[in-house]
């Protein structure tokens, strides 16, 4: 079984998509959908074996020196996700085949969509933490490209950037977490990790791993306080929302947690952390969804609520809760995918997504209405839909956790009641209430637009009514993969009269009440929001980015101010500081004050040179400075000569004279010195100069102190004549022992000559850039 072929097929298709689109512009949706559909069928076939506990594992070496391989691991959990991805993916592709017809650059859209699908499938199939991460990042990038599909709108670009930054931040945390896992256990392979639970949980890094992996999951799965990117991401086309933001990308965070639950889970930290995050997210999502007007925004917030619920369930970490999580995962994917597609259709047909503007669509768009209502029922958790089953299970799971009492349960009931109310509001306002002024006169959508949601809604119903195959072959192995115990699951619509049923009834009742009094409640909430929750997270984030840019700009202008003197000043100050620090650190203050043989005439010349230096520095006239500089040069030549460096002295004199000539001939063209600096500036520069000069003096004093070994120059003295045939040792060194230096040196001279030549001869053109 070659699992990589599945992903390879999708990716190949992705790269072919632009071309296919060119050749078959009409049928592109169907063509592209055929491959995920085929994969779906194949997976269903596989699921028969998986249902009997088969696990497929394949590994291909990628970077073995780092312990990284591309390995694929198919168990129940992966299978469940794969099925959802391929099913919804195929439907979305069919849907977008029509939906996207009139947009430009569709070829690239399909490319990105297929890329995303491949990445997502890779993510759930990967059996190596690093390859999970690779696909994880790929989903971030491709979702960025998809969300920003309408890239000429500023809002879309901002939304895409937001989504990318948030998820990339999480990605980095995830990467750090994975590296830490490897550090603790020595492996990246999931299959090996499953046996390392003890080691990992006793590792000193456990908490860090948990936080980092959790951060990754939270950003990807839009958990509070990173939830804001999801509503913004609605700026993308509807098929994208239907695909990415219902079943696939936003569930990736949940997936990674479920995947690692057998290894990381079960501790107090795990439970507490995830539950709190999930609970808050759930409430936030539910609460904010009520006040939205935009249909897609409502769906986005309700998605956040659902994701919060999932996180909470994972966090509760009991058999019941995992079971509930898996079921609710499927439930939510089905109805949310359908609803997003419906929202897209409505938007397309009417030109608006404002639910209070819409209305009466059941007349003009009957198929769509039916489909949407089915999905909404599932969302509201009414029987006989699988949504009801999911909710029942959630209540069941939450009612039996010992530590936290009833808090999760109550919160959950409130949140679900909101969902009921929202479903009702959507159903009423969009399809039945009186319509406002619609930009376009609605008419029924073509088959391709409603078949997708219809299939999903139908599945919502069918899975609840005929759960056999789903239970046995898909849900059970998935739960089994997370909760390591033999599982037997029976999805039942009817549990008998019990507490859970009562909770459901309460939920629906409260929801109905909210719906009934919506005219009063919603404005009240809005007012409340304006007063107390006047935080637009998305805006805050953008403000933060702006503020960050502003700050860095300011800082850049400060650091990279453009004035060379300050650059040099910082360099000298830092260099001095570093050297002084080093001197201090090395504890080496005792300089050698007697550094050797200095005859009085050398000292005398040195004094004059010092004086001439001072004149050169402080003279007001350029020529005086130059003459003083010449004197310094000759003085140094004399000092060299006094210590027996004859060639050096000659060279020094010659170059000094010629530099003087060149210098004089160049300043010919320049204006005279003006006195530029203020006294305080000069004093400051003087202090810097003295500090720098001071340590250089110190270093020169130290130089003679440490002599590790006799110098290598004895060899030159010995061999210069016998081997090098020269009596002038310095010259022999230059042309023979170290001739390579000299070769480089004359090369430098040649280049310098070319440079001078070009600089002096070049015409004074304004700009010489690329043509």
């Amino acid at each position: 079984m070659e699992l990589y072929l599945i992903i390879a097929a999708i990716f190949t298709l992705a790269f072919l998509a632009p071309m296919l689109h060119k050749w078959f512009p009409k049928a592109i949706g169907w063509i592209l959908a055929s491959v995920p559909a085929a994969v779906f069928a194949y997976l269903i076939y596989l699921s028969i074996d998986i249902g009997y506990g088969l696990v497929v594992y394949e590994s291909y070496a990628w970077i073995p020196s780092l312990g990284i391989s591309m390995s694929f691991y198919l168990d129940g959990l992966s299978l469940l996700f794969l099925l959802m991805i391929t099913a919804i993916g195929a439907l979305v592709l069919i849907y977008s085949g029509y939906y996207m017809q009139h947009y430009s650059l569709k070829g690239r859209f399909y490319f990105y969509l297929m890329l995303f699908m491949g990445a997502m499938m890779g993510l759930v199939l990967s059996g190596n933490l690093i390859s999970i991460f690779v696909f994880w990042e790929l989903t971030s990038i491709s979702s960025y490209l998809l969300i920003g599909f309408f890239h000429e709108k500023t809002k879309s670009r901002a939304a895409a950037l937001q989504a990318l930054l948030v998820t990339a931040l999480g990605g980095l945390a995830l990467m750090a977490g994975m590296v830490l896992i490897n550090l603790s256990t020595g492996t990246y392979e999931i299959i090996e990790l499953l046996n390392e639970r003890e080691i990992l949980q006793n590792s000193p890094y456990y908490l860090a791993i948990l936080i980092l992996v959790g951060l990754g999951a939270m950003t990807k799965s839009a958990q509070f306080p990173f939830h804001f990117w999801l509503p913004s991401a609605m700026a993308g086309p509807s098929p994208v929302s239907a695909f990415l933001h219902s079943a696939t990308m936003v569930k990736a965070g949940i997936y990674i947690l479920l995947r690692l639950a057998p290894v990381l889970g079960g501790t107090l930290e795990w439970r507490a952390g995830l539950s709190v995050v999930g609970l808050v997210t759930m409430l936030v999502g539910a609460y904010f969804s009520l006040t939205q007007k935009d249909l897609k925004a409502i769906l986005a917030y309700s998605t956040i609520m659902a994701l919060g619920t999932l996180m909470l369930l994972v966090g509760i970490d009991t058999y019941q809760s995992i079971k509930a999580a898996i079921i609710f995962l499927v439930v939510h994917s089905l109805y949310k995918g359908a609803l997003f597609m419906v929202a897209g259709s409505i938007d397309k047909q009417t030109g608006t997504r404002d639910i209070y503007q819409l209305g009466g669509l059941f007349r003009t768009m009957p198929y769509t209405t039916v489909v949407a209502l089915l999905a909404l029922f599932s969302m509201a958790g009414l029987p006989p839909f699988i949504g009801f089953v999911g909710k029942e299970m959630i209540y069941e799971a939450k009612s039996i956790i010992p530590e936290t009492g009833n808090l999760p349960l109550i919160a959950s009931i409130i949140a679900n009641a909101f969902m009921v109310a929202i479903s009702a509001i959507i159903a009423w306002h969009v399809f039945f209430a009186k319509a406002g002024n619609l930009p376009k006169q609605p008419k029924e959508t073509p088959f391709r637009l409603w078949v997708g949601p219809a299939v999903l809604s139908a599945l919502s119903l069918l899975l609840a009514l005929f759960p056999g195959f789903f239970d046995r072959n898909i849900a059970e192995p998935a739960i089994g993969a997370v909760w390591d115990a033999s599982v037997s699951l029976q999805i039942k619509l009817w549990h008998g009269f019990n507490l859970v049923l009562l909770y459901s009834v309460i939920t629906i009742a409260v929801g109905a009440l909210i719906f009934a009094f919506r005219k009063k409640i919603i404005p009240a909430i809005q007012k409340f929001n304006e007063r107390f929750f006047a935080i637009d997270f998305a805006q805050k984030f953008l403000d933060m980015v702006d503020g960050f840019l502003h700050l860095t700009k300011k800082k850049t202008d400060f650091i990279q101010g453009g004035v060379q003197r300050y650059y040099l000043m910082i360099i000298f100050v830092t260099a001095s500081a570093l050297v002084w620090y080093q001197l201090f650190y090395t504890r080496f203050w005792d300089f050698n004050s007697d550094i050797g043989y200095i005859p009085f005439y050398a000292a005398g010349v040195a004094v004059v040179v010092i004086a001439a230096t001072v004149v050169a520095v402080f003279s007001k006239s350029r020529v005086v400075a130059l003459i003083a500089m010449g004197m310094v040069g000759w003085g140094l030549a004399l000092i060299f000569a006094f210590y027996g460096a004859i060639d050096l002295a000659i060279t020094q004199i010659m170059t000094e004279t010629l530099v003087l000539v060149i210098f004089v001939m160049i300043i010919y063209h320049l204006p005279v010195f003006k006195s530029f600096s203020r006294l305080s500036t000069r004093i400051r520069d003087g202090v810097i100069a003295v500090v720098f000069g001071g340590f250089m003096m110190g270093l020169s004093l130290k130089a003679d102190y440490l002599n590790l070994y006799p110098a290598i120059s004895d060899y030159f003295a010995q061999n210069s004549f016998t081997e090098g045939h020269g009596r002038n040792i310095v010259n022999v060194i230059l042309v023979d022992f170290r001739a390579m230096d000299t070769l480089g040196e004359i090369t430098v001279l040649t280049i310098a000559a070319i440079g001078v030549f070009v600089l002096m001869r070049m015409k004074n053109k304004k700009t010489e850039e690329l043509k």
Partner: protein
Amino acid sequence: MGLILSILTGVLYAAAIYLLLRRSIVKMILGIIFLGNATNVLVFVSGGLTKASPAFIAEGQQVAAEHIADPLPQALILTAIVISFGIIAFSLALMYRFYKITGTDDLDDVTEEDEV
């Protein structure tokens, strides 16, 4: 008196730094020249100051006498002098060009934000 060459090194460095920090490009290049000189002296001093004869092998002898100046630092400084000569010639030409193009010799007048 033994300190004097070290002090010379320090003074040359200080002068170089001070000149480099001036606004006039001419002074900056003077600073570069001084920096080169200062470094040469530093290398020379660190090579060891001994009372020694020049590094030559006398006529009729195969190897050098006992006390000769260390020839290697001399060769190094010689190379360095030549290299800095090339660099200084180049910087002077650059100075010319700078003035021709910008019309100023004040380095503060020209910053990175300048767009033509």
